[in-house]
């Protein structure tokens, strides 16, 4: 038993026979599901009170997904509701065995029949029991007729047809809502339409038979014709209203999406730009700090605004950009990166990034003006060029104890089968790094690296 305070919210559960009302009620009240179901059946037999109660709860009580969506206020990102909804249901022990096959079938885009079967097996013979109860009821009626009791079969059959049709159509509504979140395959839609049509046909037939009093075909046709005419007229009148309502709904939805986006942008600006501006105001006296802060913030904002959503993570260009950002942050020196082409990261390419980073550090430390970095990835090789506009130096005159150039750049590239050349002139220095990408080249590189390692 749970106390009133910790009682879970009243939502329709995923473990369902018809619409999950009993499951939800049982979870809310803390009673066993079986008890609630038996109680509901008993109430249904008592003059149909259970049926009315069930239908009322079906309409009024949201499913777990809907309730989660309704409660999710200001999601962090526009995709948050879609992502969080399937996991928002309270994970109780009662749902977990049944929820898993459902989720699996929905994710696989299975036709409704499959999910139906899954559900039946999930609820262990629940359907069979229901079917048996229905057959027993029919048998009882037949026996009653044989015994001479007057059963208004002419009314009962149409009513049963109407109820059955309505149930099928409503279940369909639930189904599409749930499946719509996960995926919309054509098979699903076709099955859905078929079920909707079947439900509609049952209801219409039931209503017709009931109204025309199970009379002759002639009367039935006439009634059908007139009802279709009436329905057509009503549809004609209501169509513009319906369309307007639909459009309003769409507009409102679009507005909500915009509001979410806006909230996201505001949150981002607050976390990044406003903080940086505050920092800049406090450090207005220190020029290098201000430049560094502004530069770092610019880079961050640029990355956020213009990031390429099609680009996969862990690419070589990202590594180069990150290295440039690191150099900018540590030395406060602008590093302009241009990349053409891209490839996935690997251990050897990591070495290329490290060598490029070393070259950038040197350029920023000793060179003047902006440091230009250019990465070009072709089918054969990845090349990185790091150029500065400093006074230049003689690569051969670098003392042997200075590991920066010799070991971290040239040695590292050689070990991984690449090459590094350094050209320096009074206009500036350029470091060119080349790393072959093809398998043949890397095999040759491996033997080469053995030789290099011994040196």
């Amino acid at each position, binding site marked *: 038993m749970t106390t009133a305070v910790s009682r879970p919210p009243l939502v329709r559960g995923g473990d369902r026979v018809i619409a999950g009302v009993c499951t939800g009620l049982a979870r809310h009240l803390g009673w066993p599901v079986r008890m609630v179901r038996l109680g509901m059946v008993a109430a249904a037999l008592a003059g149909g009170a259970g049926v009315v109660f069930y239908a009322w709860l079906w309409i009024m009580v949201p499913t777990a997904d809907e309730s989660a969506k309704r409660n999710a206020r200001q999601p962090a990102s526009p995709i948050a509701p879609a992502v969080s909804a399937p996991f928002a249901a309270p994970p109780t022990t009662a749902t977990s065995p049944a929820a898993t096959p459902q989720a699996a079938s929905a994710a696989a885009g299975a036709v409704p029949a499959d999910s139906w079967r899954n559900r039946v097996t999930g609820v262990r013979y629940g359907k069979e029991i229901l079917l048996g109860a229905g057959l027993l009821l029919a048998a009882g009626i037949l026996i009653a007729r044989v015994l001479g009791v007057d059963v208004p079969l002419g009314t009962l059959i149409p009513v049963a047809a109407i109820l059955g049709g309505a149930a099928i159509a409503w279940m369909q509504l639930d189904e599409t809502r749930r499946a719509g979140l996960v995926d919309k395959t054509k098979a699903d839609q076709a099955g859905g339409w078929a079920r909707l049509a079947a439900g509609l046909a049952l209801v219409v037939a039931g209503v017709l038979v009931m109204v025309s009093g199970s009379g002759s075909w002639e009367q039935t046709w006439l009634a059908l014709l007139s009802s279709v005419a009436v329905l057509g007229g009503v549809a004609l009148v209501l169509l513009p209203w319906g369309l307007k309502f639909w459009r309003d709904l769409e507009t409102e939805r679009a507005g909500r999406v915009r509001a979410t986006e806006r909230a996201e942008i505001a949150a981002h600006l607050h976390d990044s730009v406003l903080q940086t501006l505050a920092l800049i105001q406090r450090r207005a006296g220190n020029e290098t700090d201000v430049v560094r802060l502004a530069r770092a913030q610019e880079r961050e904002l640029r990355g956020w*605004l*213009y990031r*390429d959503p099609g680009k996969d993570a862990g690419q070589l260009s990202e590594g180069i950009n990150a290295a440039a950002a690191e150099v900018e942050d540590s030395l406060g020196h602008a590093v302009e990166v*241009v990349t*053409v082409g891209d490839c996935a990261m690997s251990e050897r390419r990591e070495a290329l990034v490290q060598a490029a980073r070393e070259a950038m550090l040197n350029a920023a430390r000793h060179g003047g003006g902006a440091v230009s970095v*250019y990465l*070009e990835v*072709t089918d054969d090789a990845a090349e990185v*060029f790091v150029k500065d506009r400093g006074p230049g130096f003689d690569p051969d005159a670098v003392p042997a104890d200075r590991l920066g150039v010799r070991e971290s750049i040239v040695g590292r590239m050689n070990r991984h089968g690449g090459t590094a050349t350094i050209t320096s002139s009074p206009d500036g220095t350029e470091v060119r790094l080349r790393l072959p990408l093809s398998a043949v080249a890397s095999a040759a590189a491996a033997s080469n690296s053995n030789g290099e390692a011994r040196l």
Partner: protein
Amino acid sequence: MTSTEAGSPAPGIRVVIVDDHAIFRSGLKADLDPNIIVAGEAGTVEEAVAVIAAVRPDVVLLDVHLPGGLGGGGRDVLAGSAPLLGSTRFLALSVSDAAEDVVSVIRAGARGYVTKTISGAEISDAVRRVAGGDAVFSPRLAGFVLDAFGTAPADIADDELDRLSARELEVMRLIARGYSYKEVAKELFISIKTVETHVSAVLRKLQLSSRHELTRWAAERRLL
């Protein structure tokens, strides 16, 4: 034509600055060389079109992002000033170096593209170059061009507009690597004038090419 880097064609180049930030406009005015005369300023698309038509400057320094017009910013100014494109040259300026901004203004008719962070001397140099009829490519624009056209040189059979020649590719690569025109000329043992010719040819291809890869590249970045 002289081969000096800033071969000033006229004693004074008349420019119009189009930018919606007044602070940036005044800062740029102060930064420009004294022989560049600011003949007008504008802050919106409509103002810009009117001022450019009235002043008829040699060069328009055009911000890519502008209020007004059809929402296209600098592109709308270029569309509105289409009859003047023969006599007035446009140099695009932007804080953004997103591909869509850069390539769309170039394809609309701008002769060059520089980011707002470059120094006053560099902007003055770019203005002189554009006024002289040449194209101004920043390293990043060169990178976009290489990305869009691919890094393989053209075969002879190929449509001339759709590929870059081997020489043009070399020039673009060097510019992307941060080389100035002078350094490119020195590296390739050609004259600065030849470098400028190559860059102008690339600009023309970028503006006119309907190459399949270019359109696909643009579509991927939602440029079209």
